[in-house]
């Protein structure tokens, strides 16, 4: 890992699979990057149809405080969740949202903002919205370089149900490319659409 300590939050509503995104990342960091990681998901009553999130705290050596303190990364797939969990962010953090589901973002937030049609991309390019979570961890990888591309792919494969390995691998690769594209863009606000995803997917196949 490129730094000693890193904190990421994946947020959305119940059923979108954001908790799984956190699990995969934590698993990857511990299994293949020789780091410590904890994940603290939101809990039961809060999860049913409501706002949900998972915080992943990563440290090269030891995690003492068992919750996130200052987030380096925040990905959100729903307005409901954004309103509750958009807090405790560092000024130089990265914020990723799906603007179709999270239309109200305050103006002039200090963080780098990536607007990506994540659910549309999952539906159109992968055939199912449930791949959004895996695309999301891919985007995390491409954007932050906290985990090696090969390692997040291994983590996704280790957590994929039997028979879904190929699609999950495809989804995480697409996410990585989307993330890298957003990383390369030096603007403070980056917009990624379905068209971008289509192009990246075609390049990949070409």
């Amino acid at each position: 890992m490129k730094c000693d300590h890193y904190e990421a939050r994946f947020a959305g509503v119940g059923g979108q699979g954001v908790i799984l995104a956190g699990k995969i990342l934590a698993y990857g960091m511990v299994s293949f990057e020789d780091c410590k990681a904890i994940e603290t998901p939101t809990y039961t009553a809060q999860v049913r149809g409501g706002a949900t999130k998972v915080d992943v705290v990563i440290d090269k050596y030891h995690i003492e405080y068992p919750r996130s303190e200052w987030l380096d990364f925040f990905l959100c797939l729903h307005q409901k969740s954004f309103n509750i969990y958009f807090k405790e962010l560092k000024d130089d953090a990265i914020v990723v949202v799906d603007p179709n589901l999270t239309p109200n973002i305050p103006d002039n937030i200090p963080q780098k903002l990536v607007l990506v049609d994540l659910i549309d991309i999952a539906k159109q390019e992968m055939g199912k919205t449930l791949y959004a979570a895996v695309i999301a961890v891919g985007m995390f990888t491409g954007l932050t370089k906290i985990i090696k591309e090969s390692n997040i792919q291994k983590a996704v494969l280790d957590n994929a149900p039997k028979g879904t390995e190929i699609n999950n691998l495809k989804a995480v690769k697409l996410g990585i490319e989307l993330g890298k594209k957003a990383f390369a863009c030096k603007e403070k606000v980056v917009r990624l659409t379905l068209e971008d995803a289509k192009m990246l997917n075609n390049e990949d196949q070409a």
Partner: protein
Amino acid sequence: MKKSVRFYSGAELVAKAAIDAGCRFFGGYPITPSSEIAEYMSHELPKVGGTYIQMEDEIAAMGSIIGASLAGVKSLTATSGPGFSLKQENIGYAYMAEVPCVICNVMRGGPSTGLPTALAQADIMQAKWGTHGDHPVIALTPAYLEEVYELTIKAFNFSEIYRMPVMLLLDEVIAHLSTAIDLPDKEMLVIKNRRKPSVPPEKYFPYDTAYGDVPPMANFFEGYRYHVTGLSHDKTGFPTTDPELVQADQERQIRKVKSNINNIIDYEYYQMKDAEIIIFAYGSTARGARVAVDNARKLGIKVGMMRFRVIWPLPEAEILKHCSKAKAIIIPEMNMGQLSDVIERYAADRTKILRINHVGGVPIHPSYILNVIKEAI
């Protein structure tokens, strides 16, 4: 290179450790935030031939584990605040009849329904005084997932060694946090079992003090046909109202823990050598406090922490010693001061005691504790 990595939550580790300690019976009732322990037990116990049963209520769950333990099977139940309140009647029975068992309480905010899904350390006092009458008490408060495993095993060992119910107090953070941990080698675990009688049935008395304060315990169906009651009883197990016998029995029960206190108390020092300000903490709150200690040390403040892995009984002598020499004591708790009240009684005239009492359901942030440390200088 791929390591074999397994993530565990605190709840899962309670279940795993219980089974590794030899627990083969779980009687439960669903309650947030402890239900995961019941779920893991329902998956894992049948695999090892053990029994999981979901009873009709919390009271029944507690009754069932006492019954199973009397039949010779190590038993666990898990609950949270409101369920812990309901269980108190039969917990008292387990003390009176001296039946080993472990009660895990994943604490939540109270009173009443309170904050079912949020973090609290609300039952420190209920663990001590929850049921009517006097009794010894052992309660453990793990702060790390490795410790959840270790102290769950210890809870079973204490319950077997001292023939009494033992409280395992988790909080929501510790129960639901997931991380990869290395479990100790099962071969290396120290597992204690209740002392069995060495005499034939006709010479056996279930509460015979001839063998020390913890009488040997025969299990049901092993040929020792004896009587167990929640009434005050003599050494034969039958009811008595003889004032001297009742007095002696109560004193002996309290003595089980009191005279073995050095084998039970368990605490950890952090940065205590030259500490002028001392934090007393337990459970997940201690982790935030430890970060605060590190940050204060960076500012040159001489602060240290004493963390209780076993909250009852408290290491009173050590606490007194520190209270006498410290400039100030800081006690962060996720309740309105259940430990602070006790420490104040020991030491209010010896030093300044600063309380941090957060009951809003969110952890006490290290920066908050740091501010209190700065105030204490």
